[in-house]
């Protein structure tokens, strides 16, 4: 147990710092793969700075909820960062929330963001909110079953426990159940973080937008908070994929060396997953909205297979 609380502070600050860079990296790699020069990976930092300095324009139809939602979205994402073992496990605050708490805290953010999409009363906002909630709802069972698979092999839904258990007994990391659950959760990650082929973060085309349609009315510091929260969400999902399924490098003792190794391996794993997403995004086209449930259905079947195989092998 690592119980110095400064670790949580370090982890929170680190996540806030790295998250925009991760989005920038994905964009940059994608541009390079498409034979474009592309903006440098640190471009999102400039964008955030610019947004924070702009005045916010609020729709006259909007209520207090519209102004409150970005804080909840950002706050819930930051809360999750404190629970997920990014560089060390188990965390001092790890006991206040397990994997289910993480999932539902993220749903809290989505819930308020969708409400904020409906608030200004535009067609786009409603469209985005409706689609976002649809995708979130049908992604939910896959997440639950992936959690089930992890819990089966680790004997716990606590994140710290899953990580340490896998480190103690590396053979469970390669079990077929884990592998299937990883693939299922990866598909859900694409859906939840608004990447191709579910949603395209790079366009504002009305037929296809999901996330972007929902936040169309936001500007200034509110938009900055939402963008930052979105990048945090990507970081959270990739960290979960990296550290729950392949926890090697995560620090289990509070020495500076172990933490240093933890940070470096974590950054490496994030970058690797980011590149995989970038490659994927250059290779696949966006699915029609009503084909998305089929993709998520596939991920559900994979997750169900994952659970079943874990049952059989137990």
């Amino acid at each position, binding site marked *: 147990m690592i119980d110095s609380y400064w670790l949580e502070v370090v982890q929170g600050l680190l996540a806030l710092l790295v998250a925009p860079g991760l989005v920038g990296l994905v964009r940059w790699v994608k541009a390079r793969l498409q034979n474009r020069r592309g903006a440098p990976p640190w471009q999102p930092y400039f964008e955030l700075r610019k947004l924070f300095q702009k005045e916010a324009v609020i729709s006259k139809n909007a209520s207090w909820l519209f102004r409150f939602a970005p*804080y909840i979205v950002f*706050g819930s994402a930051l809360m999750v960062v404190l629970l997920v073992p990014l560089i060390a496990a188990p965390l001092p605050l790890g006991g206040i*929330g397990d994997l289910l*708490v993480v999932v539902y805290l993220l749903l809290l953010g989505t819930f308020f963001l969708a409400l904020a999409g409906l*608030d*200004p*009363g535009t067609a786009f*906002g409603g469209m985005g909110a409706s689609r976002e909630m649809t995708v979130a709802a049908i992604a939910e069972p896959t997440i639950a079953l992936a959690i089930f698979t992890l819990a089966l092999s680790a004997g716990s*839904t606590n994140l710290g426990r899953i990580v340490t258990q896998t480190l103690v007994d590396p053979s469970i990391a390669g079990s077929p159940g884990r592998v299937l659950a990883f693939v299922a959760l990866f598909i859900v990650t694409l859906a939840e973080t608004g990447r191709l082929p579910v949603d395209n973060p790079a366009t504002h085309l009305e037929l296809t937008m999901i996330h972007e349609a929902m936040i169309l009315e936001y500007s200034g510091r509110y938009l900055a*908070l939402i963008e930052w929260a979105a990048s945090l969400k990507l970081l959270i999902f990739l960290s979960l994929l990296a550290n729950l399924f392949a926890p090697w490098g995560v620090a289990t003792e509070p020495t500076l060396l172990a933490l240093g190794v933890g940070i470096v391996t974590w950054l490496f794993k994030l970058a690797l997953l980011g590149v995989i997403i970038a490659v994927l995004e250059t290779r696949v086209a966006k699915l029609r909205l009503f084909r998305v449930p089929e993709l998520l259905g596939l991920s559900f079947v994979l997750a169900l297979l994952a659970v079943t195989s874990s049952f059989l092998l137990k």
Partner: protein
Amino acid sequence: MQLLFIVMIVSYLAGMGAALTGGRGPIGRGLVAAGAAIGAGAGLVLGAVVILSGTPFALRIPEILPMGGGFDLRLDALGAFFLIVIGVGAVPASIYGAGYTETYEDGRASLRLLGVMFNLFLLLMSLVTLANNVLTFLMMWEGMSLASYFLVMAEAHDENTQQAGNWYAAMAHLGLALLLVAFLLLMTGTGETFADLRAQAQTLDPAVRGVIFMLALLGFGSKTGIVPLHVWLPRAHPAAPSHVSALMSGVMIKLGIYGLLRVGLDLLGGGPMWWGALVLAIGALSAVLGVLYALMEHDLKRLLAYHSVENIGIILLGVGAGFMFQSAGLTRLSALAFIGGLYHTINHASFKGLLFLGAGSVLHATGTRNMEEMGGLIKRMPWTALFFLIGAAAISALPPLNGFVSEWIVFQSLLSGVNLPSPEAAIMMPVAVGMLALTSGLAAACFVKAFGISFLALPRSPEAEHAHEAPRSMQVGMALLAVVCIGLGLAPFVVVPLLGKVLTGLGGLPPTEAAFTLNLSLQLPANFATMSPALIGVGLIAILGLISIGLRLFNANRRQRVSDSWGCGRIGQSPRMEYTATAFAEPLRRVFSEIYRPSKEVTIDFHPESKYFVQSIEYRSEITPWFDRVIYDPLLALIRFLARSVRRLQSGSLHLYLMLVALTLFVLLVVARWF
């Protein structure tokens, strides 16, 4: 305890008395409400005293109902828990009712009847939890159904209400008939108190026990609204006055859960694996179908009624898992699962009560239940909107509110299903987990729709534009429930040990106190998982504070300008451009079209000169729930056919009727002689 009991009874009777003298005007309505609220409050305290002290309260009056063993009351911990649930729902609903019933001063409904029945309904519900012998229980149960029937029929001039009343009466009595048979089968010896039944049940044949359990499940299920016996819920709950809907949906249907636990767990002491598996399957089905049909509803109160079906499903997932673990001898896990079910029971009473009261305020202000005619209410009714939002977040299982805590416990108990010895039972658990997750995701989507379309954006009708905030008494009622939702969410470390006490000893469940750590976080047995909603709540508030400080620290631009929404270059925005509830639910309707099977009809009127000019387009789409189509339509047709056949006997000849009476008597005598 004696005193509390007397206060409860006297207060309800006083409320009825106040209603009989008229119950009109602010004072009359206030007295009726006060009687109900004080009675329910006394019941709540009585329940709490029984659970905390661990000594049951008993009272027997042999003079009333002399042939059935007397009027026999005994409040043990299980009954006390449900008495508390009644109190949690009824105190706020009664206070709310004082203001809400003002709309009936115009004579649309009889305030006298409403006041009497409201108090009587609460009294009889409370006595159901106290009943200690078969006759007392069944009398109170039937009385409760009848009293609530009159409440549903409050606005009896409305044709929909009459239909709703018919459905309700039919389903309630179907349930009663099944329960009568179940209790007859249980009563094999001489005594009819629950203690006697418990002793006799041990000697029953397993097949008979199975039949009794099935009958109890269906009989109580028709009251709780399990699929497919739920058809009266979406009809009757919207028809009743809103504070009554809150009670029926939040509290009364929970007494079906009470009955199921009383008979299945307490009297029968649990049974084979298939009992729990059946309950689990019914729970999963009810949860998913409930929320799916809720999504397609645009009548705010019908939507909430379908969500009651969903939440009963979630409760039954916990209860079913509990029965399964119990039959496998895993008593700790069994206690955990039952605790999840009971926790969700009281949570649902609070947030569904709150939501129905909120819907009632909207109905009160706009005169419509149709969400497509609402909108923009958050500015006109800020308090109602805030309370409804809290209820919506709680029912969507968002942390740190109460819905999340109980769903978390149910989730955890299902995840522990791998410990079940028989693989075919264990494999049900991941499927149940998937269903529960789908349910909670869809519920979140549904409440984004319910809150977003009703309260946000621009008003869609003149009524919504001129809506006004609810009167103070209604706000107080909603505020109380909102506080309960938050409190139950933040303090599971207080609630869970109490629920453990409720269950201790039932069906051989052990005391659970040792299994749960009693600090701020909730730790499950065998270190399986921990969580602390209180710390999550504190953390979220701290982080919100930090964000504001951070924004100042980094010198973010704090100016904001209010302007038009972006309309793709078009100037001026009208409510007709907004997303509607139908449009919001459209993607899910397409995804689940296999289940909904919507009928679609498009009529296009062309210009007589050319097909390129369209004069009008009419689009109509309808969803008939499959159980209506598959089960109830044929059933109703059969009943009509039978009724027509019987009509032949009805010739109008008195002689024929007398002969039939004599014949019936003869047949009955012969039957009685033989058996």
